[in-house]
C-alpha cells in the first residue's frame, strides 16, 4: 500500500479539498503549482540555505544513553527542539513563505494554538519583510502570553478569535475567513498537515527534512538507515509527518503515533482523535475528528496546547485505519512525568507535546537491540508555567 498522497489529494479515503467555492481559485493555484515551484533548483537552494544558516539544520540525532539504559533499549532523540524558535514548526514556515513570495503574495496570515506556529510564521515574515497577521483563540491568548509577546516583537499583528470555543479550531476558521475576504494579495500559511489538499502533502514535504536527516545520521552512527521504530506525538501531526515521511512505505520501520489522552480517554476531556473521532470534514479535509453524533465539532482537551486539535491530518487518519501506524494515547499525568524524567536523565527540558511521545517507554516494551528514533519536536521553555504549576516548582 502507498501511504503518500494520491493524485486526487487523498490518503486512502481521507483528504480532499472540501472548501467553499470562494477559496477554490487560491487552493487550485496552489495545487497546480506547489510541486513545480518547490522542485525548482532556485527554490531548493534558498530553502536548504535558510534551513542550514537560519534554522540551524541539520539538527543533531542524539543517542540518549541514560534514558536507553533505564528502558533497556536504544533511544535516539531527533533534536528539533534545537531549531530556531524552539520547535520543528519553522521548517514548514520557511518553505511556505518562499512559496508565497514566488506566488507574488504580500500579506501572510496564519492560525496558532499554543503560539509556536504563530511565532514561526511571524519569524519568517520578519525575515522576508512581509506583513503578518496571526489568528489566535481569545482563550489561548490568555494562556500563552509569552508567545503573544514574541509575535508582537517580531512585528506580527495578533487578532483574537472570539467565535465558537475561542481556541485553535476557531482561530483556523477565522484565518480561512480572512483568506476568503482577501484572496488576491494574501497567502495562508497553515501550521500542520491539515486543511484542504495540497496543504497536508505540502507541509509533510517541508517537514520531511527531519527523516531525510535521520537516515543519514543513523547510517553514520549505526551503519543502517532504518530504525526499528519512529515515534512522534500527534496533534494535527506535522512533526510526526516529518519523521515518518521517508519511512512511510517501508514496512520494516514501525510507526508509533502518540496522542494526548488528556485526563483519560473516557473522561470527556481528551484529544485522542483516533479513538474518539469519526470520519468527517474539518477545515477542508475529510479525516477523523471529534464531533457530536449530530456532526458538530467538539472541543478537545490536553494539558499541551499543541495537541488539542479536534482532528488529525488525513495522512495520520489513513495510517491509523490501515493499521500501518500504532496509535497510543498518553494522559496529562504520564506526559508530565516523562517530561521531568527526560530533564533529569538527559538534561533536556522537552515541550509537553514531546513529553507525550517520551511517555511511551512506560507503556511499551522494546527489545534491547531495537533502535527507536523519537522526534523531540520542541523545547520546554514555553511550557515552564505549566510545569511550575503542575510540579509546584
Amino acid at each position, binding site marked *: 500500500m502507498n501511504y503518500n498522497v494520491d493524485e486526487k489529494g487523498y490518503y486512502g479515503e481521507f483528504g480532499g479539498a472540501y472548501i*467553499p467555492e*470562494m477559496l477554490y481559485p487560491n487552493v487550485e493555484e496552489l495545487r497546480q503549482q506547489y510541486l513545480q515551484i518547490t522542485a525548482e533548483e532556485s527554490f531548493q537552494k534558498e530553502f536548504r540555505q535558510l534551513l542550514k544558516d537560519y534554522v540551524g539544520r541539520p539538527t543533531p540525532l542524539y543517542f540518549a544513553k541514560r534514558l536507553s539504559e533505564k528502558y533497556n533499549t536504544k533511544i535516539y532523540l531527533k533534536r528539533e527542539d534545537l531549531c530556531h524558535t524552539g520547535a520543528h514548526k519553522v521548517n514548514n514556515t520557511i518553505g511556505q513563505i518562499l512559496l508565497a513570495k514566488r506566488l507574488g503574495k504580500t500579506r501572510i496570515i496564519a492560525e496558532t494554538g499554543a503560539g509556536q506556529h504563530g511565532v514561526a510564521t511571524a519569524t519568517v515574515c520578519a525575515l522576508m519583510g512581509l506583513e503578518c497577521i496571526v489568528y489566535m483563540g481569545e482563550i489561548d491568548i490568555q494562556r500563552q502570553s509569552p508567545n503573544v509577546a514574541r509575535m508582537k516583537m517580531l512585528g506580527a499583528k495578533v487578532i483574537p478569535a472570539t467565535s465558537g470555543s475561542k481556541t485553535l479550531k476557531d482561530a483556523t476558521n477565522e484565518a480561512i475567513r480572512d483568506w476568503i475576504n482577501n*484572496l488576491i494579495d494574501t497567502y495562508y500559511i497553515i501550521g500542520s498537515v491539515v486543511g484542504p489538499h495540497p496543504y497536508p502533502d505540502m507541509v509533510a514535504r517541508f517537514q520531511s527534512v527531519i527523516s531525510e536527516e535521520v537516515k543519514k545520521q543513523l547510517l553514520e552512527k549505526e551503519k543502517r538507515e532504518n530504525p526499528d521504530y519512529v515515534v512522534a506525538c500527534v496533534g494535527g501531526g506535522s512533526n510526526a509527518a516529518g519523521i515518518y515521511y521517508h519511512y512511510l512505505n517501508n514496512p520494516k520501520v514501525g510507526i508509533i503515533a502518540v496522542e494526548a489522552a488528556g485526563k483519560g480517554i473516557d473522561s470527556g476531556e481528551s484529544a485522542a482523535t483516533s479513538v474518539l473521532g469519526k470520519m468527517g470534514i474539518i*477545515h477542508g479535509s475529510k479525516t477523523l475528528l471529534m464531533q457530536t453524533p449530530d456532526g458538530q465539532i467538539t472541543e478537545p482537551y490536553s494539558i499541551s496546547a499543541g495537541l488539542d486539535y479536534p482532528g488529525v491530518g488525513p495522512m495520520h487518519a489513513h495510517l491509523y485505519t490501515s493499521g500501518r501506524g500504532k496509535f497510543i494515547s498518553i494522559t496529562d499525568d504520564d506526559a508530565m512525568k516523562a517530561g521531568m524524567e527526560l530533564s533529569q536523565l538527559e538534561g533536556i527540558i522537552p515541550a509537553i507535546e514531546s513529553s507525550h511521545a517520551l511517555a511511551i517507554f512506560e507503556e511499551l516494551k522494546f527489545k534491547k537491540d531495537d533502535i527507536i528514533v523519537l522526534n523531540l519536536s520542541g523545547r520546554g521553555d514555553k511550557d515552564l508555567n505549566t510545569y511550575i504549576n503542575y510540579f509546584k516548582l
Partner: protein
Amino acid sequence: MNRLQKTLQQDKKLLSIYFTAGYPNLNNTVSIIQELEKNGVDFIEIGLPFSDPLADGPTIQTSSTHALKNGMNTALLFDQLKDIRKTVQIPLIIMGYFNPILQYGVEEFCKKCQEIGIDALILPDLPLEEYNTLYKATFEKYNLSNIFLITPQTSTKRIKEIDSSSSAFIYMVSSASTTGTQNDFSAKQTDYFERISKLKLKNPQIVGFGISNYETFLSTISYAKGAIIGSAFIKMISKEGIAGISSFIKSIRNS
C-alpha cells in the same frame, strides 16, 4: 420538475430569505417560514446550524452558535418541518455545511428531504468534483437540486462546468467575501454581474452575500433573476422577532 424549478420559470424577479433554524428561539422555524410566505417571499433557505461555518461572517456565525445552544439539530429540524407542506407552497431549500449531513447519512438525509418537501440543498463546502462523483446520483434520486456558488474569481471555464452540473439556479456570491460584509455594490461588482449575465447560462442566477436593503436588491435584480438576503434578515429578527418580518420584506420590495 420540482417547486423550485417551476418558481424560477416565473416571469418575475425573485426574493429569497435565509434564516438560521433554531434562532432566535428553538421553535420559531415553522412560524418564520409561514410568515415569509405570507409576505410574498418567493423561496426560502433554511439554515441548518453548524459549529464551524467557514463561509459565514459574524452575524450568521452568532445565530448558528445560539441555535445550537438552543438545542437545534438535524433530526429536530426534520421533525419541526414534517407537516410544513400542509401549509406552505413556496420552494424550500436547506443550506448547511457538509459534516452534519455526512453524519446523518447523505442518502438518509436526501430521502428525508424528499418526504418533507425540500426542493434543493446548498452545501458551500461540498465541492463540485466530490458532488459529481459521489453524491449526484443520490440527490437526483430524491429529486433534489444542488445549488453551487460562483464568485467574481471563478473562471469562465469553471462557471460553465458548474452550469452544466446545476439543475435550478446558480448562487452568485456578490464578492469574494464571507456573508454579511458589505452595504452597497461597487462598479467592479456590477461589472461582474453583467459579465455573468452575458454568458447566457442555462441556469438563472440568484445573487447572495451583501444584499441588505432596497438599493442593493434593486441593483442585483437588474442583472440577475433574484437575490437572497441572509445576515440583514437575521439582524432584524434578532431585534424585532417574527413581528418584524412584514415590514422588513416591504422595505426590501419598497412596497
